[in-house]
């Protein structure tokens, strides 16, 4: 099954190699990964989405925790979290299809961030399913380019 791990790591050259290596040596492919600095410029947060056996993932998580440059690892799979991903999508348009495309974008609450004569670029946020749904809906018009950030997740606000 798909697991989402959030790791707080030190900003050092080599941190990514070490972490990626732990998955690579098992020949586990990382489905998506996003890494960015946190409020503390010495630390980054990695969100790792990986498909694998729960037991193996648990062991990899333990191995991650053991790395000197890893401060904490949380498995957000079972937790109550908000999941989001950002995608930038360039779509082919013509005078005939333009209004249909814009309508679809509107339904998915996407935002047009750039527009040319023959194509336009949309920014869309949502969970993975929503983005997959949009990509499917838009494909018939001509999907020119797709860039996704990979999922990030945050714990839900307490009520």
């Amino acid at each position, binding site marked *: 099954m798909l697991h989402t791990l959030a790791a707080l790591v030190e900003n050092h050259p*080599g941190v990514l190699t070490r972490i990626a290596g732990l998955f690579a040596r098992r020949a586990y492919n990382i489905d998506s990964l996003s890494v960015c600095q946190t409020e503390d410029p010495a630390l980054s947060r990695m969100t790792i989405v990986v498909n694998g056996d729960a037991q193996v993932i648990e062991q990899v998580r*333990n*191995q991650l*925790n*053991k*790395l*000197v*440059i890893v401060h904490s690892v949380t498995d957000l799979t079972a937790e109550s979290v908000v999941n989001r991903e950002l995608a930038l999508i360039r779509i082919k348009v013509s005078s005939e299809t333009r209004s249909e495309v814009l309508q679809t974008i509107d339904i998915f609450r996407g935002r047009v961030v750039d527009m040319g004569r023959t194509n336009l670029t949309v920014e869309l946020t949502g969970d993975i399913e929503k983005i997959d749904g949009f990509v499917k809906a838009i494909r018939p018009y001509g999907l020119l380019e797709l860039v996704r950030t990979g999922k990030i997740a945050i714990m839900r606000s307490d009520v």
Partner: protein
Amino acid sequence: MSMNAGKKSLKGATLLLEALEKEGVDVIFGYPGGVLLPLYDALLDSSVRHILVRHEQGGVHAADGYARVTGKVGVCLATSGPGATNLVTGIANAYMDSIPLVVLTGQVVTSLLGTDSFQEADITGITTPITKHSYLVKDAREIPRIVKEAFYLAGTGRPGPVLIDLPKDVLAAEIEPFSTEMNLKGYHVPGKGDSDKIAEVAKALSECSKPVIYAGGGVITAGAGAVLKQLAEKASLPVVTTLMGIGCFPYGHPNLLGMVGLHGAVAANYAVDDCDLLIAVGVRFDDRVTSGLGHLFATRAKIIHIDIDLAEIAKVVRTHIPIVGDARLVLEELLEALAGFQLPQVAEWWDQLRSWKNYYPMRYDKDRLTAQLVIECIGELANEDTMVITDVGQHQMWAAQVYPVVKSRNFATSGGLGTMGFGLPAAMGAQIARPDDMAVLITGDGSFQMCIQELATIAHNKLPVKIVLLNNGVLGMVRQLQKYFSGERYNQIDLQGNPDFIKVAEAYGIRGIRVDSLEQVRSAISEAFEHPGPVLLEFAISPNDDVLPIVPPGKPITEMLGG
């Protein structure tokens, strides 16, 4: 005294050596090279002793041997490029056996990093999977902090090798002194175990009827041998050890069943298979013990796993009570917790264990010259502080089976990686670490030739290592595997072309004694032990002798041949 003492700024290399001195480093095993010029220059003014090895692999194994027999962090040094890559086997070897090393490598100047410049290798990249941690130093001011961290990381928790890659310009830089505080927020050393879980273990122990302690290298690392003995004696618990655990429980103790695993004692393997409570301490359920069949290992038992490394828990077998912590602290607490419980009723279990022990002793021919006979004779003539270092192969298993090790840190062997060539340099490092105790290397004619150049280092430094060469003229372990599992289709196991080893030793200025008959064994060993310098003792043994028992590949450990 440092040449720069009194001056305000220091060279990076001097700073490095001062940092090593602060960590109590008395010896480095090294080999110079171009990028290390600033360091070898500074070494002339340092109190740190440098042993010039004859190959970097010898240096890293020597540091490893030093660490194994003392528990201290071993240090080795190699130049950039080929010097660094020659260390790789030794680093992997130390990593597999959780041996604390600080590995120093020279690196090309920072401006040439990543440009494939002369003698450049991405050694931190190459060694990423086989180091506990590594540093590529870009600023000389970081040296004191990094050295401090490296020693702390190497020696604490589950020990392991830490590599520090030092570009030439960093070693040569003139810098001002500054603070050296460690910054290791992501590193935590487990201490005491969970008290509730320990109480659970005490309860499980009181309720079981067939307990076994399965003890490994972690017991030695943690210095938990004494408390393990107390626990075993108090609750009448049988003990089996792994190869790495040899010495953690005294040979000859009535509670010891012997080594467990593919070449283990029959009683030990049967006990683990039949027990209803397995207390695993400082072990990793290696496939040389479990046959790689975690689901068939100790299937009748409730398994308790005590280890300092969380990543080892449930890696191979299901664990009923995991306890992450320092083995000594956990066992001490367990011993205390036992006070509140009844001790297990194990009389019947011991009847069974004793009958296995009596029925299946380690057997070998005593009427001809065999390796086991030689090793037993060494045990009789040595004392309990003698260090035995082995290479890898049949001789290693025979030594593990029959040599009477009674103290921790007196048996050093390449367990996890199984590195042929480890023995000679490791024995050299062990002898330098403990000059007052005798170092005996048990090796074979295959392994011996893999680092044979270190005879020069031994001769040069007059190290009185006793080299016991069990020469059967073949790669015996492979031959034996081909005999049993390849239908006797022998291939590439005949070491034709072996030199006259006595002449080789003598060429290095080392005394050589050859033994061809049973009658000479004892007197030759005595003579070697009394000689003040290094000696090569060569014993001609038969290529047909096998290490028995043996568990065929893919079979559970109860299915031993030749038990």
